């Protein structure tokens, strides 16, 4: 799972640059939380584009995660990119005052979708393409909000596991305090990914790499030294979240149907 930092940087910056140019954008926009993934994506965007053409939206919910907001601001300053802080609490609170809930996940998903709505709004205002920051581990485990943080125009990080993003972060010279942060989806305070998923990223990535990249069977992965419950948990998360990685099925009743046999490239006419 070792990567060559400079090679991956070259590929991902070329991807950002060429995709923007294909779709006729000069600017990229992304949500910057101050965590590892969005920081790495911001660094890559700043290298691929002129810093003035990168807009980072920092979107805290009220006063929570203050330290992350400070870190995000610091990254924007360090890279010389544009940034904007938008507090999402007025919109989110307005909604939940009418439809209250104690369910943390429902609240968290609403926040993720609020951020998505703001990103798409600013994407149109600024004519900027949204850069996604979901990594391969999250995508495979479905550890993200559908139509929330998973929504984007292009995703430069989606084929790198969390542990590979860490390697890339080191190569890119991302400040240590960001690299050493405990990964969190930031849906509520004291939430951490590893606590919620019940496994460390190091372990999850090793299991995923064997299952997905090496196409190993469950039996072989267990035999390589992982607990049966751990491997089964990962497989179950992958299966349960397939719907998040696909467009919803359309019932096929006509001769030619979107999503079935109306088959054109994403880069059609680009």
């Amino acid at each position, binding site marked *: 799972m070792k990567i060559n930092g400079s*090679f991956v940087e070259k590929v991902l910056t070329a991807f950002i640059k060429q995709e923007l140019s294909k779709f006729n954008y000069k600017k990229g926009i992304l949500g910057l939380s101050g965590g590892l993934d969005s920081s790495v994506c911001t660094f890559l965007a700043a290298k691929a584009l002129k810093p003035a053409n990168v807009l980072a939206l920092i979107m805290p919910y009220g006063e929570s995660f203050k330290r992350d907001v400070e870190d995000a601001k610091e990254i924007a300053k360090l890279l010389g990119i544009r940034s904007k802080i938008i507090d999402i609490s007025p919109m989110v609170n307005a909604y939940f005052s009418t439809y209250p809930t104690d369910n943390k996940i429902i609240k968290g998903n609403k926040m993720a979708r609020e951020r998505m709505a703001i990103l798409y709004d600013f994407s149109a205002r600024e004519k900027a393409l949204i850069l996604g920051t979901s990594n391969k581990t999250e995508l495979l485990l479905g550890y993200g909000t559908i139509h929330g943080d998973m929504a984007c125009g292009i995703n430069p990080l989606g084929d790198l596991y969390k542990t590979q993003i860490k390697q890339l972060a080191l190569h890119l010279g991302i400040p240590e305090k960001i690299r050493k942060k405990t990964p969190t989806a930031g849906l509520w305070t004291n939430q951490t990914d590893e606590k919620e998923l019940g496994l460390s990223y190091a372990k999850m990535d090793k299991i995923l790499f064997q299952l997905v990249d090496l196409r190993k069977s469950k039996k072989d992965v267990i035999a390589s030294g992982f607990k049966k419950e751990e491997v089964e948990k990962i497989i179950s998360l992958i299966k349960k979240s397939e719907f998040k990685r696909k467009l919803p099925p359309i019932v096929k009743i006509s001769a030619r149907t979107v999503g079935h046999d109306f088959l054109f490239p994403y880069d059609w006419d*680009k």
Partner: protein
Amino acid sequence: MQCLRNCGNFSFVRVAIAQITPHLGDVKKNFDLHLKYIKKAKKKKADLLIFPELSLTGYTLKDLIGEVALNPKKDSLFGELNAASRQISLIVGFVEEKEKGLFYNSAAFLSKGKILHIHRKVFLPTYGMFEEGKFFAQGRNFKTFLTPYGKMGMMICYDFLHYGASYLLFAGGSEIIIVPSAAPGRGLSDKECYETSRMWELMGSAISRFSSAFLIYCNRVGFEDGKHFAGGSFIYNPMGELIAQASYLDQDFLIQKINLADIREARKKWPYKRDDRPEIILESLKRIIRNNED
């Protein structure tokens, strides 16, 4: 073989490789891009200019295939390419509508104002990220043909990963084997290239040596639908040694003079060609096919 006497007066060939990023589905733009590289290659006094697989159309065509298909006998674009080939031989990749509604992934060799040979891709990758078999008709032949530079054979991309195809060109007497390609890179390691780039190089080295022939691989670069074409075009000499390589990932234009005497030297030293027994291979294949049971 008449042609050989007339044409075989080249001792050296200046080979040019255009490692380009075609525009997906835009034949006109790609044609202009070809003209630009033809001009460049002529300026550098190249004898032969090679473009990658589907260079006139781009790769991820899907249902666009019918819209970009060309008939080399009828399309004016080929008239212009033929005209350009009076001064420089060309290999271009395109979607060929050989018969109405039958689309092939083809590469044409143009020289002295006409098409000398068209290779239609035989092995259409249809697995994992590839779906060529869904859209293209399958070619049926690996043919060695005569050119001003000696006997040549072509394979397109995945053809080259089936060593039976290389054997047929070897048995047919190919001295220069050309592989236009649109190969997406995949697989990360601590090396500064994709794992698949190493695979192509390994094949290039092995096949050039097995065949005691020059092996010229012309890949493309750029992204289509997130796939990243990995470049790294190369030339191996008949001893299996790398003599030129284009950059990984970036657009590039490579010029390399190859010495045709190297073929003779390699075959004197390692008489694989002399000692080949295609009739034994054929009989063995027939037996294998006869005995093949489901």
